[in-house]
């Protein structure tokens, strides 16, 4: 800690920080542009000027820029000196000489960092008399809109895009006062983190395109704290609505998980809630129906056996209610057979090793990835790993007495002080490009090498009977022996439990290994990436047994007919499975968000995550709850509510539940570890808007002069209000939006945090649901892991950010970026077979057309295949590849063109709908007013 004096007032701040960060964390208002807590200082904008004095006797002082000045014991500075105040005003005036002052048409208006800073400096008059420069804007694709004239040249976009996120297609161009931030030519931004530019840019150069097509001011939006539904990280988001429709997702700061950044799947995937196939009505055998209908009631009251099929797309509450209703022995988690094994293995490992948060992973000093393409399966994790790659350079910088927030310096020495990154697996990715150790191999080989590695680290680890250690494994062994905080990462995407076992053994071995070393500190990390937002929720519920898919298959083919009660599922693979069971089931009842109901089922429309509360367990088993931003649409109800209603019909005890609080009470009984989370959650008063617009809103003033009551979820234990928790209070939870006095933009998040992702993060990060056991379990190599397949080609699954998550494919912006099916082959195999990149191929007699990519990151005799999640593809291996005929190619191209035109129409329709809504603000949104 350091004692410093700001305008003669004494403060104690953490040393090593820069003065800007220290001042902001003291809640002082110092304007800035180029600095960012996650990206460090570069000193470009010069906005954060202060005066520094040598000692008490120094009256003149000299100007410094705070972001480049480390705090030191006893330092004396001033923020109030007229000279520096004037400088700060001049600086804003200068950087706005070319700003178009077009705030009315700017989607950023009202939450603009530039506006905030301008007010803060007091700059209120334009003196520059020259002409303004005008730039041409670029079409950067469906997600991000470009308006270069608003640029104030703070370089943050480039630094985020290129340095932080590793994108190569956005950079500063030209020079002097002509600097231009864009691509070489028009085209969709390639980085899956491009959407963050919207929040990183302090003004309106990069804006959210889908939102901007019909934007609202921040003060007209109501915002709820939400959780991203599109992968297992569970990034915290703010979900905003206007007039009952969800308009956008922005990042909700969480120091432990997403920090300041989301991936584009999360930012733009939410609009699946507006998809054409969104279920809004009860249907019975394909016909619209209602709850009171007797035929429907008969179906729901069927006295036979009920089998429940859970879903990792549904909340913990929904799955729990289903399990309660049908009983554990009749509850199937809705996974396939291999996934059930993966889930069991994963849970066993989580019992032993707590998974690290993203903040912790960013501290790693060595990284090993076994056959998991995190860049695509959980992109936000990959972004964190990217940051960890700077750690050794930061250590080196500190040795040279350069603070680690001196971003450019750290990056300059990074090449000579890399953090080792070992990748055992396949496929090209941003991380694979940076690997210092790279073994291109099949998941099975990766697992074998992992087992070997563990046994070399500790003789207590079981050995696999097969293979010898590769040179990469030996290199990795050396790395792991030296590393203090190694991260081992694997996941479900290769569909191979042996990988999880191998990773766990290495983790165990590292513990044994570290106890043998001097300091005995064991800070190794193990992270396993499950596929979906609530996969581990199923893990929690099925810990004490469940109905496996094998038994389900058997039972469904026996004569005794049962009823299937199916939670939300819309993947083609599941629909395919269900259609097999359909033949034998007596009666099918589905609770759906999306999809076309079949002719022989009861389909109950469920509220999406935007319309109701729910909880999810992320990859760490951390429970997080989201709150609704809007009311349920149509006849929708939360899944658990339908189940409670069905229970009522059947006089089941679950029917006694009357609200979410009671249901969670039941959950607490079974899982007491959840109490803490739910208690905290339920005591909250939740403000949907910033205090600035609190209560006295004029939102619906043309309809009524009565102040509308904020919408509150039916039976919700918390209250949505206008005056809820405010930012700046310690432990504010949940925080719906970002705001603090004078700071209307999301940069208000940068205040009040004395350290970002530092070693002294507050320990409290939430409730982990999977309890640690003491067991010291080693996995043995299983015989069935060694099974050989004689097929010509082995197929390995590939993932894509925009394509492998089915839910987000129902969101138009993501659908527009959807990548079509691909097949990847090694150059050698391509040459042998005479295949050419770009060609369209078919596997055996499968009808999916796959476009060929040639890459060295493919293990021998393997094909990497990616098929979008909305298409069915179940092959594991393949004997023969056939090239598409000219006619097939034409058809394929036609299809894609057709798709693009349809998407344009859908986009237009959606916009028209929102416009029409503006004209007639629906009075029924006002509760308590007729």
């Amino acid at each position: 800690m350091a004692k410093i004096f700001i305008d003669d007032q004494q403060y104690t701040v953490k040393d090593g920080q820069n003065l800007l960060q220290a001042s902001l964390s003291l809640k002082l208002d110092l304007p800035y542009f180029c600095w960012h807590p996650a990206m460090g200082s570069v000193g470009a904008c010069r906005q954060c000027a202060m005066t520094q004095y040598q000692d008490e006797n120094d009256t003149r002082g000299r100007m410094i820029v705070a972001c480049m000045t480390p705090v030191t014991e006893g330092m004396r500075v001033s923020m109030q000196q007229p000279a520096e105040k004037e400088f700060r005003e001049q600086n804003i005036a200068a950087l706005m000489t070319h700003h178009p002052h077009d705030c009315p048409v700017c989607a950023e208006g009202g939450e603009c960092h530039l506006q905030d800073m301008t007010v803060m400096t007091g700059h209120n008059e334009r003196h520059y008399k020259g002409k303004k420069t005008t730039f041409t804007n670029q079409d950067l694709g469906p997600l991000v809109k470009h308006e270069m004239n608003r640029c104030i040249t703070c370089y943050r976009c480039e630094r985020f895009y290129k340095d932080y996120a590793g994108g190569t297609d956005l950079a500063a161009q030209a020079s002097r006062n002509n600097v231009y931030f864009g691509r070489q030519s028009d085209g969709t931004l390639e980085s899956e983190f491009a959407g963050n530019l919207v929040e990183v840019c302090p003004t309106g150069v990069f804006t959210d395109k889908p939102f901007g097509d019909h934007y609202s001011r921040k003060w007209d939006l109501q915002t709820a704290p939400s959780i991203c539904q599109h992968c297992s990280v569970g990034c915290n988001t703010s979900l905003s609505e206007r007039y009952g429709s969800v308009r956008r997702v922005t990042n909700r700061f969480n120091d432990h998980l997403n920090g300041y950044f989301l991936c584009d799947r999360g930012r733009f995937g939410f609009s699946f809630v507006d998809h054409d196939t969104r279920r809004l009505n009860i249907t019975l055998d394909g016909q619209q129906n209602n709850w009171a209908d007797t035929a429907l009631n008969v179906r729901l009251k069927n006295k036979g056996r009920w089998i429940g099929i859970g879903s990792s797309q549904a909340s913990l509450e929904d799955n729990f209610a289903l399990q309660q209703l049908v009983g554990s022995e009749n509850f199937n988690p809705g996974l396939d057979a291999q996934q059930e094994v993966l889930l069991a293995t994963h849970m066993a490992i989580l019992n032993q090793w707590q998974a690290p948060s993203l903040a912790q992973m960013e501290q790693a000093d060595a990284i090993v990835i076994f056959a998991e393409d995190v860049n695509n399966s959980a992109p936000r994790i990959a972004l964190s790993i990217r940051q960890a790659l700077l750690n050794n350079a930061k250590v080196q910088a500190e040795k040279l007495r350069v603070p680690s927030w001196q971003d450019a310096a750290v990056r300059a020495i990074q090449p000579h002080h890399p953090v080792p990154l070992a990748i055992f697996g396949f496929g090209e990715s941003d991380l694979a490009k940076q690997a210092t150790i790279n073994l291109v191999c099949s998941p099975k080989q990766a697992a074998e090498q992992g087992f070997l590695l563990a046994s070399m680290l500790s003789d207590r680890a079981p050995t696999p009977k097969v293979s010898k250690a590769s040179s990469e494994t030996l290199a990795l062994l050396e790395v792991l022996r030296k590393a203090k905080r190694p991260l081992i990462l694997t996941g479900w995407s290769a569909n191979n439990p042996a990988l999880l076992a191998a990773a766990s053994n290495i983790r165990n071995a590292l513990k044994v290994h570290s106890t043998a070393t001097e300091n005995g500190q064991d800070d190794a990390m193990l992270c396993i990436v499950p596929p979906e937002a609530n996969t581990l929720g199923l893990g929690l519920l099925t810990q004490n047994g469940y109905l496996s898919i094998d038994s389900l298959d058997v039972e469904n083919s026996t004569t005794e007919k049962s009823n299937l009660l199916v939670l939300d599922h819309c993947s083609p693979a599941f629909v395919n499975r269900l259609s097999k069971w359909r033949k034998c089931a007596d009666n099918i009842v589905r609770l759906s968000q999306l999809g076309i109901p079949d002719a022989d089922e009861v389909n109950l429309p469920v509220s999406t995550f935007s319309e109701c509360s729910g909880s999810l367990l992320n990859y760490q088993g951390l429970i997080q709850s989201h709150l609704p931003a809007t009311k349920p649409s149509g006849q929708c109800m939360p899944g658990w509510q339908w189940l409670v209603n069905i229970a009522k019909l059947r006089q089941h005890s679950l029917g006694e539940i009357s609200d979410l609080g009671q249901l969670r009470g039941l959950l607490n009984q079974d899982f007491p570890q959840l109490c803490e989370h739910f208690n905290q959650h339920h005591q909250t008063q939740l403000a949907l808007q910033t205090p600035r617009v609190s209560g006295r809103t004029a939102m619906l003033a043309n309809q009524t002069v009565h102040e509308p009551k904020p919408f509150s979820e039916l039976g919700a234990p918390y209250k949505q209000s206008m005056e809820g928790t405010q930012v700046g209070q310690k432990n504010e939870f949940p925080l719906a939006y970002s705001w603090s006095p004078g700071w209307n933009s999301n940069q208000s998040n940068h205040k009040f945090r004395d350290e970002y992702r530092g070693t002294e993060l507050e320990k409290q990060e939430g409730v982990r649901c999977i309890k640690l056991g003491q067991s010291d379990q080693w996995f043995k190599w299983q015989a069935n892991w060694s099974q050989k397949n004689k097929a010509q080609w082995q197929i390995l699954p590939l993932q894509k950010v925009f394509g492998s998550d089915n839910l987000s494919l129902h969101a138009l912006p993501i659908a527009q970026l959807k990548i079509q099916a691909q097949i990847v082959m090694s150059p050698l195999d391509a040459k042998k077979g005479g295949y050419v990149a770009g060609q369209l191929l078919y596997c055996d007699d499968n009808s999916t057309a796959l476009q060929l990519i040639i890459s060295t990151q493919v293990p021998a005799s393997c094909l990497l295949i990616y098929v979008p999640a909305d298409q069915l593809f179940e092959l594991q291996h393949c004997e023969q590849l056939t090239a598409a005929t000219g006619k097939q190619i034409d058809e394929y191209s036609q299809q894609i063109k057709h798709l693009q035109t349809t998407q344009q129409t859908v986009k237009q329709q959606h916009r028209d709908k929102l416009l029409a809504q503006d004209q007639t603000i629906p009075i029924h949104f006002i509760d308590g007013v007729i």
Partner: protein
Amino acid sequence: MSNEIPILQIDLAKQQVVNYRDVLSQTEIDAIEHECSLYESRHAAAIDALQIVQKQRRWISDESLYAIANMLGMSATELEGIATFYNLIYRQPVGEHVIHLCDSISCWLHDYQIIANHLRNTLNIEFGQTTKDGKITLLPNVCLGCCDKAPALMLDGELVESLNIETLDNLMQGLSRGQNG
């Protein structure tokens, strides 16, 4: 053989990727490779590479830019950021001859504007433009380091010092003679 395989007309790669061997000459490739060998990283040769290609082709077209980017293993956008930073890299076509007229202080003190106006009138173009016949491009340049012999210009890389209307006319005549044969 491979030409007969039908290729889908949908862009595989999103960025402008060309194979540098299809665009650059062997001489250019060799010269660039030599520059690459002088630095710790291939990217460092970017400016040299741009100059090498520009020497051959007078200016850097999009195609050349993509080819160099491909050869150095960088993105077209990054290379564009570099190409547009340095003023001696031309991202637009220039004429057969390029005149850089010094407009800095010593030449200003020697009334270079007279020379400038004379040039604009004779060539009938403004600074930054190329004559209609594509022969001559006129560009301003910062101090050429000929301050003792101001005013000065650089014609196709050669310095011409102590300019006056007469020497300028001779120079222009020389150029047009060259153009006639």
